[in-house]
């Protein structure tokens, strides 16, 4: 009895509710939110701006930041942006080796993440580490060969470096996977940039077999026409007519063939 009496005195009694009818003016959720925002309870003053004066302070700063990043990763290692922010920060400090190790650890977590590979390769390229970059691109295209971004960026990098043969080899490796039509066109355009019309022709030959559609045969013929090889163009049209035979007769092919012949007569007469 004594304890309960003492207990009741210490804990204030909850007021007994007599009138259980709703009040006339009800508060709304929006009003609550508005009031909460105005009170600015969670608004903290900004941390004081500190200038780093000597090496020890710099090391302290780095330690703090690294600990922060590692803690975030430990909280959730699948959120890739934690890894990327950490690696970008190390890169900004020109700590390339540390950044590499972070990217490798991240790839251990999720090797199928495209941005990781892209950011990793970009870091190596920015730091002028050409062979490291090539290695990353090589691994990326081996592990994820159906991700076109890697191939495009790899071949572009080799072209920028002036390694045209290497670029060609990368394209050849890509074409082995028989990718979509746009990839073939990128290869052909690359060869045409260096005026290699014969090489372009051989690529077109393979292309029309991998993607045996009428419009691709027509594109091949028009490519020959554009570069002035009229006899070849005619041959391509004829071959395509044979290729599709009688079962897959397509009017577009004949229309294109006819237009081509008409254009030839106009030019010659």
């Amino acid at each position: 009895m004594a304890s309960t009496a003492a207990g009741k005195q210490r804990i204030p009694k909850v007021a007994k509710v007599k009138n259980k009818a709703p009040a006339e003016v009800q508060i709304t959720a929006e009003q609550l939110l508005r009031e909460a925002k105005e009170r600015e309870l969670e608004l903290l003053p900004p941390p004081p701006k500190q200038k780093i004066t000597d090496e020890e302070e710099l090391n302290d700063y780095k330690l703090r930041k690294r600990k922060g990043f590692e803690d975030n990763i430990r909280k959730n290692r699948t959120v890739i942006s934690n890894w990327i922010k950490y690696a970008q920060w190390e890169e900004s400090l020109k700590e390339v080796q540390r950044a590499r190790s972070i990217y490798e650890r991240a790839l251990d977590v999720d090797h199928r993440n495209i941005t990781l590979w892209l950011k990793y390769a970009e870091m190596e390229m920015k730091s002028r580490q050409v062979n490291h970059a090539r290695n990353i691109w090589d691994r990326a295209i081996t592990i994820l060969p159906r991700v076109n971004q890697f191939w495009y960026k790899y071949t572009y990098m080799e072209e920028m470096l002036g390694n045209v043969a290497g670029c060609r080899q990368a394209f050849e490796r890509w074409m082995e996977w028989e990718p979509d039509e746009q990839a073939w066109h990128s290869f052909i355009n690359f060869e045409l940039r260096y005026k290699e019309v014969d090489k372009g022709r051989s690529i077109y030959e393979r292309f029309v077999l991998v993607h045996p559609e009428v419009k691709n045969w027509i594109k091949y013929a028009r490519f020959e026409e554009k570069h002035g090889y009229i006899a070849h163009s005619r041959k391509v049209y004829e071959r395509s007519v044979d290729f599709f035979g009688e079962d897959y007769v397509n009017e577009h092919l004949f229309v294109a063939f006819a237009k081509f012949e008409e254009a030839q007569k106009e030019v010659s007469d």
Partner: protein
Amino acid sequence: MASCSVTSATALGEGQTPSQKREERLLKFRDLHLKRNEARKLNHQEVVEEDKRLKLPANWEAKKARLEWEVAEDAKKKECADKGEDYHRVKLLEITADDAERFERKKKKKNPDQGFAGYAEAQFRQYQRLTKQIRPDFEGYEKQREECGVDFHPTSNSLIHGTHVPSKDGIDRMVDDVEKQIEKRAKYSRRRAYNDDADIDYINERNAKFNKKAERFYGKYTAEIKQNLERGTAV
């Protein structure tokens, strides 16, 4: 000048008195004065004109030509309207074949940004833009052709993989290109203005962004429901 007056006097004849000779010389002298004055006047006029010309704005000639052309066009339009012909058809009949070609080429495709379709598509768009800007280095190309020999057109199994040593220029070009890409990427998202008197439906900043995202995707479907709730009753 004195000598020619003397020669002309002697040419006229021996029977000229000194005073007549003097008269003639004075006349000639006056003529010369008049000529000199005339010359000075004309020179001065030229100077004034040139000064005015120099003071004109840079493309006055171009502007004048354009204004005149516009006046001519208006006159022609009126003429066509009077005659009852279509101005455009008449114009088309007048331009020559190669002019027409040039206009078509000038109009070349603008390729406007259709908004985000997917990361692969966006990267491909970037790839198209970058490859259109490549200026191939044909000298380096020929040099590499000589060095490689057969391997210049490699297969996927060729052993040139990993043997290329890029020149400093090549590396510089690559690095510059990467940095330009990063710069362009930084400008993709812009800062939106903060609307002070918009309703607050969030409890912190992250929540605010999420609500904006939800509004973007579902806003057009839930607008009616929201209005009904606001009003308190359905219509």
